[in-house]
C-alpha cells in the first residue's frame, strides 16, 4: 500500500477515537450534570410548591446560588437520595439530607445547644458556602433563628456597632454554647479584663460565689445582648432594679431597699431627672465594677475614701475640707471625725439650700449630734461641751428661732467645710480672725469698727495671747445678752468680766497693765454702788466704753482728759466744769491724793487711839464696879 492510504486511515481512526471519547464523555456528562439540570428545569420555577400536612412548602431552588455554592459540583441526588425524577412526588419516603455522608471528617457539634438543629439550619440548604465565608455572616445567621426581643436588640448594642458578633461570646461554628451565670464574668473578662478584675473583687462577685441567685453578674446590669454604653441606662435599669426590691433588701438599715429609695428624692437624683449628666448616679459614688461594702477599706464609699469619692465632682469643697480640722482628723484615721456623708447624708443627700436638715436651726442639731454628750473629747477647755450646747441659749439661736434668719449658726463663724479649731491661725475663729468673723458684713460691722484700733485689738494683732478678742468677753457659743434687763446684775457682770484680766496679778505683770484697777474701783463710790446693786452706778464700760477701749493717752479714748467732761457728763450733768484734780483709780494714795492719805492716817490714829482708850477706860471701870459690888456683898454677909 502506499503512504497516502496509511495517512488517511490514521486520520480517520483518530477522528473516530476522539469521537468515541467525546461520545463517552458526553454520555457520562448527560448522566450526572444532566440530573441537576433536569431537577432545575422544574425547580427553578419560583412558584413551584407542594403541600405537606396542609402546609405550602416552596420547592424553589435558586440555580445561581447553587452554582456559586461550594456544592456547585454536587448533583441534587448526591444529597437528596432515592429521588426518582420521573415520579411526582419523587419519593414516597423522603429522607433527611445527611451531610455527614460526605462530611465525614468535619467537626461534630461540641455542645448540645444546637443538637436538634440540622446542619442546613445554619449552613443553609442550597447556597452552602465555605466555612470561612460562612463565618462572616454568622451573626446574621444566628439572628435568623434567634428572633426573640432580647436577642434581636443586639443590633443596637455596642457590640454590634463594634462588630463583635454572636460568636464573640457564644463561640463560633460548632462550639456555640449557652453561657451560664457563673461563666459570664470570665467570658466578658476576655475582652473587658480590667473591669472583670475589678468585678472579681466586688461584693457582687462575692455574693455570686456564695451562690446567691440574686447576685448580679455583668449581664444583669449591662444587659445580655442589648449592651449599651452609658450610665443612665445602667442606673435606671440595673442598680435600682434590684436595690429597690424590698424582698431582696428588706429592713430599714443601711443597704436596705428603703434606705436606697431615698436616692430618688436626693439632689443627685433630682438633677439627674432634669437631664444633667453631671449628676451623680449610683456608680459615681459606689464605683462601677468594684462595688464594695462600705466597711471595706478599698470601697469608694468607705469613710476614709469618701472625700475622694465626693471630690471627683465637688473639688473645691473637698480641698478646703481636707485642710479643715475634720479633714485632718479623718486623715489621722480618727473614727470620730466626720466625712461628707455624716453631715450631708448618704442617699438622701439634699441641697443645703432647700434641705430641712440644713436650715440654720436644724444644722445646729447636726453639729451637736457629735459635739455633745462628750462624744468629742475637748482638749482646750473643761466644759467646752457646755459652751457648745450653750449655743442653744445664745442670742444667736434665739434670734434664729424668732425668724431672724441672718443670725448665725455654727458654720457662719466656724466655716462650713473649712471648719478649723481655734488653735490654727488660719481658722476663722482663731484669735486673729475672730473679730473679722464676728464683724463680717451684715453682722457686727459697727462693733468691729469700734473695736479696731482699741488697745485690746492692737494687742491681739500684735499676737498677744492675753489680749481679748470678741469671744473673751462675749463668750463663745453661749453668747447671751445676759441680764440685759437686770441692770444692776449686768453692771456687776461687767466688772467681774474686766476683773478677770485686770485684777489678775500674773496677767497685769506680764503685760505691764496699771495695777490696783479692780480694787480701787470696788472701793470707790461707783464700785460700792455697783456691788450694792445700783442700777445706774458707773461700771467699767461706762467710762472706758466697751469695744473702743483705749488708754487715756489716746486722744480718741473716752478717758482722755479732753473727753472726760463728755464721758462723765453722761451721768453727771454739768461735768464740763468738773475739776479733774487727780487720777480716778488711786494706785498710790499718798501721791495721788494726799488729802485722802492724811485723813486716813488721822482717823486711824483717832480710831485706834481714842476708841482704844475708851475700851481701856471702860474695862477698868467695869472691873472697879464689879470689885465694889463683891465687897459690898461680902460686907452684907
Amino acid at each position, binding site marked *: 500500500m502506499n503512504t497516502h492510504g496509511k495517512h488517511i486511515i490514521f486520520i480517520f481512526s483518530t477522528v473516530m477515537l476522539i469521537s468515541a471519547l467525546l461520545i463517552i464523555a458526553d454520555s457520562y456528562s448527560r448522566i450526572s450534570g444532566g440530573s441537576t439540570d433536569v431537577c432545575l428545569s422544574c425547580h427553578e420555577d419560583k412558584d413551584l410548591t407542594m403541600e405537606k400536612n396542609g402546609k405550602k412548602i416552596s420547592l424553589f431552588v435558586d440555580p445561581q446560588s447553587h452554582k456559586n455554592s461550594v456544592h456547585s459540583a454536587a448533583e441534587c441526588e448526591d444529597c437528596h437520595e432515592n429521588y426518582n425524577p420521573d415520579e411526582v412526588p419523587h419519593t414516597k419516603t423522603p429522607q433527611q439530607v445527611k451531610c455527614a455522608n460526605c462530611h465525614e471528617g468535619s467537626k461534630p457539634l461540641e455542645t448540645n445547644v444546637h443538637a436538634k438543629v440540622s446542619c442546613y439550619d445554619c449552613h443553609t440548604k442550597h447556597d452552602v458556602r465555605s466555612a470561612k465565608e460562612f463565618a462572616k455572616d454568622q451573626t446574621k445567621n444566628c439572628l435568623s433563628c434567634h428572633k426573640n426581643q432580647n436577642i434581636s436588640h443586639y443590633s443596637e448594642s455596642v457590640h454590634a456597632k463594634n462588630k463583635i458578633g454572636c460568636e464573640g461570646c457564644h463561640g463560633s461554628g460548632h462550639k456555640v454554647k449557652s453561657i451560664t451565670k457563673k461563666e459570664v464574668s470570665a467570658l466578658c473578662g476576655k475582652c473587658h479584663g480590667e473591669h472583670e478584675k475589678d468585678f472579681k473583687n466586688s461584693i457582687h462577685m462575692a455574693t455570686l460565689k456564695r451562690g446567691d441567685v440574686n447576685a448580679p453578674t455583668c449581664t444583669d446590669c449591662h444587659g445580655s445582648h442589648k449592651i449599651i454604653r452609658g450610665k443612665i441606662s445602667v442606673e435606671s435599669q440595673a442598680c435600682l432594679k434590684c436595690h429597690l426590691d424590698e424582698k431582696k433588701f428588706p429592713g430599714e438599715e443601711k443597704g436596705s431597699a428603703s434606705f436606697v429609695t431615698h436616692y430618688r428624692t436626693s439632689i443627685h437624683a433630682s438633677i439627674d431627672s432634669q437631664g444633667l449628666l453631671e449628676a451623680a448616679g449610683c456608680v459615681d459614688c459606689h464605683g462601677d465594677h468594684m462595688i464594695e461594702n462600705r466597711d471595706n477599706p478599698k470601697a469608694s464609699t468607705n469613710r476614709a475614701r469618701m472625700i475622694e469619692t465626693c471630690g471627683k465632682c465637688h473639688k473645691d469643697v473637698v480641698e478646703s475640707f481636707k485642710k479643715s480640722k475634720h479633714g485632718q482628723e479623718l486623715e489621722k484615721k480618727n473614727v470620730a471625725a466626720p466625712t461628707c456623708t455624716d453631715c450631708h447624708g448618704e442617699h438622701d443627700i439634699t441641697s443645703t439650700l432647700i434641705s430641712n436638715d440644713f436650715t440654720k436651726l436644724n444644722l445646729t442639731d447636726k453639729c451637736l449630734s457629735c459635739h455633745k454628750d462628750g462624744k468629742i473629747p475637748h482638749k482646750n477647755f473643761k466644759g467646752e461641751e457646755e459652751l457648745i450646747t450653750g449655743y442653744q441659749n445664745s442670742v444667736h439661736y434665739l434670734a434664729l428661732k424668732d425668724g431672724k434668719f441672718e443670725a448665725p449658726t455654727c458654720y457662719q463663724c466656724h466655716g462650713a467645710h473649712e471648719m478649723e479649731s481655734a488653735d490654727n491661725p488660719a481658722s476663722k475663729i482663731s484669735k486673729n480672725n475672730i473679730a473679722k468673723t464676728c464683724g463680717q458684713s451684715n453682722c457686727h460691722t459697727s462693733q468691729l469698727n469700734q473695736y479696731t484700733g482699741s488697745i485690746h485689738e492692737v494687742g491681739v494683732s500684735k499676737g498677744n495671747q492675753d489680749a481679748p478678742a470678741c469671744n473673751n468677753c462675749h463668750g463663745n457659743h453661749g453668747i447671751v445678752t445676759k441680764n440685759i434687763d437686770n441692770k444692776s446684775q449686768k453692771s456687776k457682770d461687767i466688772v467681774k468680766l474686766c476683773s478677770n484680766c485686770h485684777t489678775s496679778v500674773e496677767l497685769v505683770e506680764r503685760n505691764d497693765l496699771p495695777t490696783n484697777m479692780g480694787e480701787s474701783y470696788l472701793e470707790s463710790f461707783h464700785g*460700792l454702788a455697783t456691788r450694792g446693786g445700783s442700777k445706774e452706778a458707773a461700771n467699767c464700760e461706762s467710762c472706758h466704753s466697751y469695744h473702743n477701749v483705749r488708754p487715756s493717752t489716746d486722744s480718741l479714748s473716752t478717758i482722755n482728759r479732753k473727753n472726760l467732761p463728755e464721758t462723765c457728763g453722761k451721768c453727771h450733768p454739768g461735768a464740763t466744769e468738773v475739776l479733774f484734780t487727780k487720777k480716778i483709780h488711786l494706785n498710790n494714795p499718798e501721791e495721788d491724793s494726799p488729802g485722802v492719805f492724811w485723813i486716813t492716817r488721822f482717823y486711824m490714829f483717832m480710831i485706834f487711839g481714842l476708841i482704844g482708850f475708851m475700851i481701856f477706860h471702860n474695862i477698868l471701870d467695869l472691873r472697879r464696879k464689879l470689885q465694889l459690888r463683891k465687897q459690898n456683898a461680902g460686907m452684907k454677909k
Partner: protein
Amino acid sequence: MSSEERKLIDEKFLRMNFNERIQHFLLFSSFIVLILTGFGLKFPESFWVKWIVFIIGENAFEARGIVHRIASVVMIVASLYHLYYVIFTPSGRQLIRDFFPVKQDVADFRDSMLYLVGKSEEKPLMGRFSYVEKMEYWAVVWGTVIMGGTGTVLWFENTFLKYVGTMGMDVATAIHYYEAILASLAILVWHFYFIFLNPDSFPMNKAWYKGYLTREEMEHEHPLELKRLEGTDETEVTEEIAEEITEAPVDKPLDVTEEQLDKKENEEETKGKKE
C-alpha cells in the same frame, strides 16, 4: 428749870425732860438708820446687808440711798432744833452750860483714872454731867457737823464737784467713812457701855424714855447733882458742897437687894402711871 421741878417726887430725879427725850429719840433713831444704810453701802457683801437686801428686794440699793438721806435730814433738823434749844430756851441754856467743859473735868478725869487703876481709893464725885458724858456730847456735836458737812457734799455731788473737784469728793468720801466708823465705835464702846453694860445701870439706863433716874442711880453716877437737887438753895453746886459730899462715904454698901429694888421700881412706875 427749877430744882423743884427736877425733883419730881421723892425717889425720882428728872434726867431728861420730854423735849430732850424727843431730841434724843430723833437723834438715835436717825443715827441707827444712818449707820445701817451707810455701812450697807460700804460693805455690800456682808451678811446683814444681804439679809436686808433680801427682805427689801431688788430696789434695796435705791431705797438705801433714799432712806439714808431722809435720816440725815431728820438728824440735821434735830441738830438745828437742838441749836435753837440750847440758845433760846432756859432749860437748853442750862443744859449747854452744864455740858461745857470746865477745869474740874480735867481733875475729875485724873482722879477717876487714878481710882480706876487702883492708885486711889476715892471715886471722884460727878455733877450733872461727868467728863464721860461731856466727851460724849461734844463728840456727837463734832460728828454731826463733820458728817452733815461731808454728807451734803456727797449728796449734791454734781454741784460740789465743780468746787472741790474729784479730789475734794474723795476727801469728803474718806472723811464721811472714817468719821462714821469713829462715831459708831464711840457710841458702841463709850455710850453703850455706860447705858447698858455698866453694872450701875444694867440692864439699861431707862432715863432715855422714862426721863428720870432713881436715887440709887443718882447716888452712883451723879452724887453732886443729887446733893444739889436735894439742897435747899437753888444755886449751883459750889465747890464747898462738892468737897463736903466728896468726904461723905458714898460707896457704902447698899441696904437693898436687887429684888427689892425692882419691886420698888415697879411700885414707882405704877404710881407714876396713876398720876
